[in-house]
């Protein structure tokens, strides 16, 4: 079973994402901020990370840079999932090593489509 780490400070978003991902046959884990997510990846890297941008403690962008600089053995796919929908943010995310980008609000079709693009659905 493929694994996905959902990183978002909103419990509601994590719950909705988990529900969709489980219907797509993913095993889902959750983190409420970038620091928690980094610790989780060090322990066990998922196949894909669904990543919010604005979070307390460590933002999605800081997490992504730290992840790409880290010695995490595999290279998890990173899909930003954020309300930061401007072109500047999207370009910055790609430059920092994001594989895909989901603009909130999203639905099942959008998420499935993006996971297909990164080769995981």
């Amino acid at each position, binding site marked *: 079973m493929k694994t996905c780490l959902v990183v978002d400070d909103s419990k509601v978003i994590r719950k909705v994402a988990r529900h969709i991902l489980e219907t797509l046959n993913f095993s889902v884990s959750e983190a409420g901020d970038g620091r928690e997510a980094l610790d989780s990846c060090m322990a066990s890297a998922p196949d894909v990370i669904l990543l919010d941008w604005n979070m307390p403690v460590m933002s999605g962008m800081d997490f992504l840079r730290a992840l790409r600089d880290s010695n995490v053995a595999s290279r998890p796919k990173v899909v930003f999932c954020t309300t930061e929908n*401007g072109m500047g943010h999207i370009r910055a995310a790609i430059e920092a090593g994001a594989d895909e980008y989901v603009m909130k609000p999203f639905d099942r079709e959008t998420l499935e489509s993006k996971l297909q693009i990164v080769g995981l659905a």
Partner: protein
Amino acid sequence: MLTPTAPRRGAINVFAALLEQRTGQQIAANREWLVETALKPLMRARGLASLDALVAALVGGAEPALAEQVVDALLNQETSFFRDAGVLDMVADAVKSISDESAISRRPRIWSAACSTGQEPLSLAMALDERQVRAEIIATDVSEAALVRARAGRFSQFEIQRGLPVRRMVSWFESDGGDWVASPDLVRRIQFRRLNLVGDPLPFGRFDVILCRNVLLYLSPSLRRTVLDRLALSLRPGGLLVLGAGETVIGQTEAFRPSARWRGLYEPSLAHPIPLGRLAR
């Protein structure tokens, strides 16, 4: 599923007949429940309370444009960027191969024969640009409303995220008031025209590739054969026909055979010339 009551059943029959008359498309019994859903926005906009009221307005004939709006609403315009991405990549490879192997210098000609709101030809134009191939792309649809949207190249946030990789999005689209708009350079590569596959004259000249995906399934077997035969006439020898994932020519017509080189695509079968009488509707 609810069985339509008698008056509603009568109205659905009227809409189904109108759709078939204008486009050749049929509404399967298991999709009849979609009719009311599809027509609700139109009914709401005109303050009509029921399907029967819409039929009355149609039959009254005071507004000729209403019939076209009903047909547009009933057409399934479901599409997305890079739909069946593997197939579209193979088509782009085939076009590059045709371009590379062409003895004379000419642009490959492609016909997207049911382009809906434009995602298919735009996807192909992007995929060909990445392969450094310039092709002539004609994109047609029976719905003028869909073509208006296609020519504008404007997509909602939900539409732009279905199938389009983010790197292609930032390369070819700009954000504008919550929507995403294709670059004029990309849209200019496509000629959008209205065309009813069942009855209108075919586009001038022959094509190297015709995409006709997810249309034949809505036609009766005899019309399906007629359309396939017409498409065969529009292909160059060795040209390729691309159908939807659930569609095939097998058992439909002898005018095509599976391509030996491009898996899942079809090419005109030279052994079976099409009797001209069969092309009449």
